[in-house]
């Protein structure tokens, strides 16, 4: 029970304590089901620590939580997940020794690639976010050094289905041939736009570093078609709308035409504001995700029945109009479902990206997060009283950061990393592209030197035999 007199504050120290524990010690066996998605877990940890340590004056006087040497080592670890054919795997257990790939032909997509299903679209975005989050303070531009930009973008293109949607992995199946695996899941569409925004840049066709884009128009149409009769978004319009998918749809649309540089101020996304068929119903659906959290009656407070405990219905509507009941307001992900920490993020951040965050009453939801979901040992749980876990703890912090909670780094609602990190991504992309231009210049120089040698000697000089014209 919350003490009425105590002001509601985020206990930054306690939160940091939880995250330091997650950073330093092995995760318990309950996380075994995430073994194939370890980069996601790593992102939750590093993103949260970054959110909790804003670049204020004392960050430079105090010992940093992750030292520069450690950052470098962690970046190497992230890069060790990169697949030789582009993209990243979710776990080191899915990375084969390099010799295994010897006979593979990545460009031709030959059958030797049967197991290129080891690179995963979600793991790839987590890897890129992690590299940016782990950049050196003094030299953010090197964050993406080592990323195979061209191969990753080409691999991304191959993950797009004919209907415009994206799958998560490529797999060769004996009777189907090349197959884009993964359900009809708006998350993959969102992630595809994120990877594209982080890596592609404004390169014109014919210029060095140019990679053919995926079909953005078709993707936009796919997303826009997935709006459901009640205004929300699902993986397809034939399924129940879900706040997570609504967030992904909205963020993906906004990323499709987000400026490549100086992107941190909100941009008037064309597709987002004019493309959505029924925008007012979407807003209605998002706003409806908030509901008053009523304390479960004392008798069943120990029950952890997911669907019952925090979905107590009022006896009459008049009961809800009392001030006291405004104290805690939760969010659910679907109509008539229970409150869950992560939906504060999925719904809140979606509205923020739509520039409609002021439509919801944040204060009672903030109180709900801090008093009901924040755990004694730090972090946030899924439901009131649940133990904290990486996923809910990260997104609990993330939405507080989007909504401007004091002591936290402001967060970009569609890139899901701090705004500082967005600047890092822009710098890292620039440097990656510059390096590719530099490389191609060297090639041009070598070629013209060779041509000169040929003209002079009439044949290829011996010392140039390795260079092909």
């Amino acid at each position, binding site marked *: 029970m919350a003490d009425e007199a105590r002001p509601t504050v985020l206990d930054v120290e306690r939160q940091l304590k939880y995250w330091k524990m997650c950073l330093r010690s*092995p995760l318990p*066996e309950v996380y075994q*089901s*995430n073994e194939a998605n370890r980069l996601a877990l790593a992102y939750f940890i590093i993103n949260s620590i970054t959110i909790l340590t804003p670049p204020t004056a004392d960050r430079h006087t105090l010992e940093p939580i992750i030292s520069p040497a450690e950052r470098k080592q962690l970046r190497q670890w992230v890069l060790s997940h990169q697949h030789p054919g582009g993209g990243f795997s979710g776990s080191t257990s899915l990375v084969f020794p390099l010799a295994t790939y010897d006979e593979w032909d990545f460009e031709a997509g030959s059958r030797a690639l049967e*197991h290129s299903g080891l690179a995963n679209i979600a793991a790839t975005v987590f890897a890129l976010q992690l590299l940016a989050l782990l950049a050196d303070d003094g030299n953010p531009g090197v964050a993406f050094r080592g990323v195979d930009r061209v191969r990753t973008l080409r691999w991304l293109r191959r993950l797009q289905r004919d209907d415009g949607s994206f799958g998560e992995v490529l797999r060769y199946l004996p009777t189907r041939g090349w197959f884009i695996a993964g359900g009809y899941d708006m998350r993959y569409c969102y992630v595809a736009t994120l990877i594209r925004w982080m890596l592609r840049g404004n390169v014109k066709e014919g210029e060095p570093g140019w990679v053919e884009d995926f079909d953005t128009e078709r993707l936009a149409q796919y997303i826009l078609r997935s709006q459901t*009769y009640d205004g929300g978004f699902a993986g397809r319009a034939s399924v129940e709308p879900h706040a997570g998918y609504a967030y992904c749809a909205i963020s993906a649309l906004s990323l499709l035409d987000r400026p490549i540089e100086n992107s941190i101020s909100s941009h008037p996304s064309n597709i987002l504001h004019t493309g959505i068929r029924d925008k007012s119903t979407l807003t209605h659906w998002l706003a409806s995700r908030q509901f008053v959290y009523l304390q479960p009656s004392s008798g069943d407070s120990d029950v952890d029945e997911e669907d019952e405990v925090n979905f107590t219905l009022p006896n009459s*509507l008049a009961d*809800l109009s009392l001030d006291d009941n405004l104290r805690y307001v939760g969010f659910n992900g679907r109509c008539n479902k229970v409150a869950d920490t992560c939906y504060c993020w999925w719904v809140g951040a979606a509205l923020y990206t739509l520039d409609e965050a*002021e439509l919801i009453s944040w204060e009672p939801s903030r109180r709900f997060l801090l008093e009901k979901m924040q755990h004694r040992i730090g972090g946030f749980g899924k439901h009131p009283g649940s133990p904290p876990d990486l996923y809910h703890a990260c997104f609990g912090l993330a939405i507080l950061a989007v909504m401007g909670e004091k002591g936290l780094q402001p967060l970009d609602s569609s890139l899901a990393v701090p705004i500082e990190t967005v600047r890092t991504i822009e710098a890292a992309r620039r440097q990656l592209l510059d390096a590719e231009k530099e490389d191609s210049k060297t090639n041009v120089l070598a070629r013209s030197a060779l041509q000169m040698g040929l003209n002079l000697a009439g044949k290829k000089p011996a010392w140039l035999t390795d260079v092909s014209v």
Partner: protein
Amino acid sequence: MPPKGKAAPKPKASEAKATQPSSSKKQPAANTPPATIAELSQLRLDESRPFDAVRRKQGLSALSRDEQTTWYAARFARQPAHARNRVPIKTQRELWRQVNEASIGLRALRDHTTKWGLAASPVVTSGGDVGGLSIEAFGEWSERRLRLTALEVASRAFRERRERARRGETEGKDRVVVTETDVDDEKERRREMAEVRQKLYGVVTGRFALDPEWDDVVPIPHEEPDGALAVIAYPAEYAEAISYLRAVMASKEYSDRCLRLTETIIEMNPAHYTVWLYRAAIIQALKLSIPYEMEWLNKVALDNLKNYQIWHHRHLLVDSYYPTIAEDAEATKEFGAAEQAFLTRILAEDAKNYHVWSYRSYLVDKLGMWDDPGELAAVEDLIDADVRNNSAWSHRFFLVFSHPARSTPGVAATEPDPAAPSEIVDREVSYAKDKIVLAPQNQSPWNYLRGVLVKGGRKLAEAEEFSSQFVVGLGEGGGREEVTSTHALDLLAEIYAEKGDKERADLCLRRLGEKWDRIRVGYWEWRRKCLN
């Protein structure tokens, strides 16, 4: 060796003094019998090197001057010949004289005999050192070692025999064969070896290493590089299984044993996306029975309700199975009915399971179950059981309004569709109204009602009278205003706006923000602004 012909004389009683250092009598430890094997070997060592024992325990100064000379002479004598020869011959002779006089045993034990190495911690108490075993326990331990060696020899013989059989070698006239009994014996042997190894060294042998079937696979264990994040403390069995998975995936093996391997891993981690895809590939490559696989999958799905990959796998199975029965209407119907039965069963566990509903809509579309009465009945049963089951409401909308015979391709869910038959729209409107009356504050049927009206191209005003029954005395003071459904008020606001009655619409929205739905006051105020 001492020079020939100068054999050491038998020690005399007077000389015996010198061979037993005077100070050793001060050692009470020598009187208690040794408790462990390490103590026993130390005792033996000390007996064979009496002066060393004193020096080790008390230092060189504890020995008398004569004793020191003898100790040094003994050291000299135990050195190999080439080392001894570095000393001038004269000195050598003198030293040999002393050795002979002291009658020192030259065949002393060497010091490293006391180092026993490690054993399984349950066996010994003193930090895992075998030396800590009691003399009796050591006997047992040695016997186990012998047993293990014998088993290892037999196991190696089995492997060699199997290899010979593989090469088609003969034994006299007969071909070398490995029978099933041989394999069973080997399995039993390895089980025993694992048990003995565990007892001896505390080492756990994984189930794949125990199984002769997997001998030809060299597992690719995964090594965690320095500075790894999010390390998960998973059990050793999981790590072993994954190392075999990596090996067979790298060699692109599609076989029955690989199928079983995927099952083992799925049991431990059903969220492992790669292993599911690999399983799908094996099923296709070996042309295994899909209905059989689905039966197995049913059990896994019921055990792991929240899992995503299981449903994707089911999806893939149907994708490859359906074309084989598509021509046969009866078989398709039967398959659809079996799937419906399973869906009913799993929805009884969790009626709002997102993956299940997502699969269900895919199945309806794939199998063309639009006119299957069982489908609509299943949805109605679930809505009757819980009128707030929004998943069921969503499925109903899809089932009714995406029917290819009464929908226009390309028309979005939020748009009116001229192909939607009027009587169906009427039927759905009254279905929603019936359910609203049961629980007016339940948003699901309200959303459904509005969605149906839009889809049918109807005016929202068709629901004005119905909605008004939940709102009494709007805007009237003195406690006369009574609202039993905020969703009615919400829809009425839209209806009035549609009719051009901005004032009344504004009143609805204002009262929602002021009293009936205060948490959304920001939203209702925004709606008020939108009226103008």
